């Protein structure tokens, strides 16, 4: 323990990743040769844009006037009371972003980059559909052609989001391979990119994949934590004790955590999808049963068998149903800076209902996992604990699926 603390002091989190895209031993650029020049170009262009005041101004102005930032930090007092009181819970309301989730922060940033690079066509993968909707939205806003890859299984679960993408002028391409979920959609988007790399930009939706994607997405999403820090200090005159966020690929959690990583008094928990329970093998808990591997462009924890074949996953939440995880999370896990835990489908569904009834907020099933973690451990937290929960998205997209689940349970 003391060893870990010592290590933590020495890590300068804000300087990560290093030049080669590594967070400790995780990360890197494991891409087919055809893509490497495009990834190098993207990195170079991003580093230039980052220093360009005009790019910064454009990004911030779009976030405030189009996305609706800053999003509120809201105290969930009725939920606190329901859980017995004595500890404060704040929601970072990313569900109030335009399109209904934090995903749009990254999409705006990457589309602005694509425009700078003169790319006319945008592609993206999507699991829950939120990243697809956000990409289609940003592409429409800047007049770019847009194709979204989505697993057949996810299209069934997220019918409404498919229609939303089509309304926004995007073409949704069905992926009928493998487990027909997020990982297969990423494979297919990567195949498209390898073929059309010269005129196309791939808007990867989370903090994973080939370098520089984890770094770029982390930077664009870090606005969440920067705002939350200011807001909590202004509301409570102190830093929070605990941050909780769900972890699929890991972008909303990195977005919230990043601004606090060097504040050693702030604890953080990343919540993975426990599916039907870790012991059943039907889950997406990479830090419970995964091991380091090279998957979809990066070296990170991944659910795999002893031969290095990637396992399929299960979660009620399409956005958490993914075999891999961003490389920075693997480093946060191994250094002990962030704790990871998992929540089962049933607990997440229960949290979905509790937040709807106590706060009048229908959370996304992804965010419901983070909420379920707080609900589970609320009583065990010391009195006076100050928590921030990243409410990463709203649950409108999930209402139909939840209705079907409740119906099938009743019958």
């Amino acid at each position: 323990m003391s060893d870990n603390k010592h290590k933590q002091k020495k890590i300068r989190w804000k300087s990560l990743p290093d030049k080669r895209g590594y967070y400790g031993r995780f990360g890197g650029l494991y891409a087919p040769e055809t893509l490497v020049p495009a990834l190098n170009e993207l990195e170079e262009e991003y580093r230039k844009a980052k220093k360009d005041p005009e790019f910064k101004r454009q990004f911030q102005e779009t976030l405030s006037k189009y996305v609706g930032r800053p999003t509120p930090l809201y105290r969930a007092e009725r939920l606190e009371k329901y859980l017995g009181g004595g500890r404060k819970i704040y929601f970072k309301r990313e569900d109030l972003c335009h399109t209904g989730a934090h995903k749009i922060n990254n999409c705006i940033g990457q589309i602005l980059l694509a425009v700078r690079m003169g790319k006319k066509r945008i592609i993206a993968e999507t699991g829950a559909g939120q990243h697809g909707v956000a990409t289609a939205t940003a592409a429409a806003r800047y007049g770019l052609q847009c194709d979204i890859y989505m697993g057949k299984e996810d299209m069934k679960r997220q019918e409404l989001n498919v229609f939303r993408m089509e309304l926004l002028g995007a073409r949704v391409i069905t992926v009928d391979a493998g487990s027909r979920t997020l990982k297969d959609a990423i494979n297919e988007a990567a195949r498209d990119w390898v073929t059309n790399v010269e005129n196309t930009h791939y808007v990867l939706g989370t903090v994973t994949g080939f370098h520089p994607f984890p770094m770029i997405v982390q930077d664009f999403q870090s606005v969440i934590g920067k705002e939350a820090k200011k807001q909590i200090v202004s509301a409570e005159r102190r830093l929070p004790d605990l941050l909780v966020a769900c972890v699929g690929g890991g972008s909303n959690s990195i977005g919230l955590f990043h601004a606090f990583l060097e504040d050693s008094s702030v604890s953080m928990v990343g919540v993975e999808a426990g599916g039907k329970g870790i012991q059943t093998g039907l889950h997406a808990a990479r830090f419970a049963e995964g091991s380091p591997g090279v998957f979809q462009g990066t070296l990170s924890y991944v659910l795999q068998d002893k031969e290095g074949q990637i396992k399929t996953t299960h979660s009620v939440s399409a956005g958490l149903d993914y075999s891999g995880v961003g490389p920075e999370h693997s480093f946060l896990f191994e250094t002990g800076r962030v704790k990871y835990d998992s929540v089962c489908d049933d607990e997440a569904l229960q949290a979905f209902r509790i937040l709807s009834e106590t706060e009048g907020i229908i959370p996304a099933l992804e965010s419901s996992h983070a909420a379920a973690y707080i609900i589970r451990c609320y009583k065990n937290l010391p009195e006076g604990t100050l928590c921030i929960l990243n409410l990463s998205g709203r649950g409108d997209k999930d209402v139909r699926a939840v209705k079907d689940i409740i119906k099938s349970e009743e019958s």
Partner: protein
Amino acid sequence: MNRLEVHLKALKKQGVKGVIPYITAGDPCLDTTMKLLNIFKECGVPAVELGVPFSDPLADGVVNQRAAERALKSGTTLRGILERLENDKPEVPVILFTYYNPVFKIGLDQFAVIAKKAGISGILTLDLPVEEADEYVRIMKKNMIDVIFLIAPTSTQERIKRIVGLGSGFVYCVSRTGVTGVRSDVPGTVVPMVEKIRVETDMPIAVGFGISGPQQAKKVAQSADFVVVGSAIVRLIEQGGSSLDICQRVEDFTKELVRAVK
């Protein structure tokens, strides 16, 4: 310089063009794979690329994706492939064509030792660009395994220089941006690409991705030393039937290809 490079360089010097066939190991089963290796030997190919099936082949088109699925279904593993090669000792030089994770999972050091024992001549790891390859190259070379890298139409001259500096055996030039798979034409950019590579190295150059039959192979062989044909052969395996039927189809086709490039 290892055996493979010596062998291929000698062929290049004599101006002998060759076909390098690709198949996925274990598609539809390892017994058939071993028979096919012997057939390739009889057809007189200089080397064979043997694909290691992977669950998430993001640089492959549908034909090779399905081949990987069949191979995994038949229980094929990287260790199993290497054990079988060690046992059967096929006479044709074998180049493993793989994604990195199955190798990473075994561990580079241990993998290199068992691959050497299995008689592997070379390895091409699709998702391991030169940026990540220092340790990998060092360990493979120490075990006399040639390391083959891809060069793509998007590779800059500076990258080509770096790639040929690190690789050995031969250079694999990807004929087009895109995944593996059968296409109906050969892009006009192949000839200038091969020339760009020749400036940097005297290693033999193989061209692959999308070469579907004898006519295209012939065209490509006008500039390249070797022509890699993959999906077109894998499609013949996919047609199924008995092991004998599969072998016959592949043999006939390979002979045609070999004749075409001569």
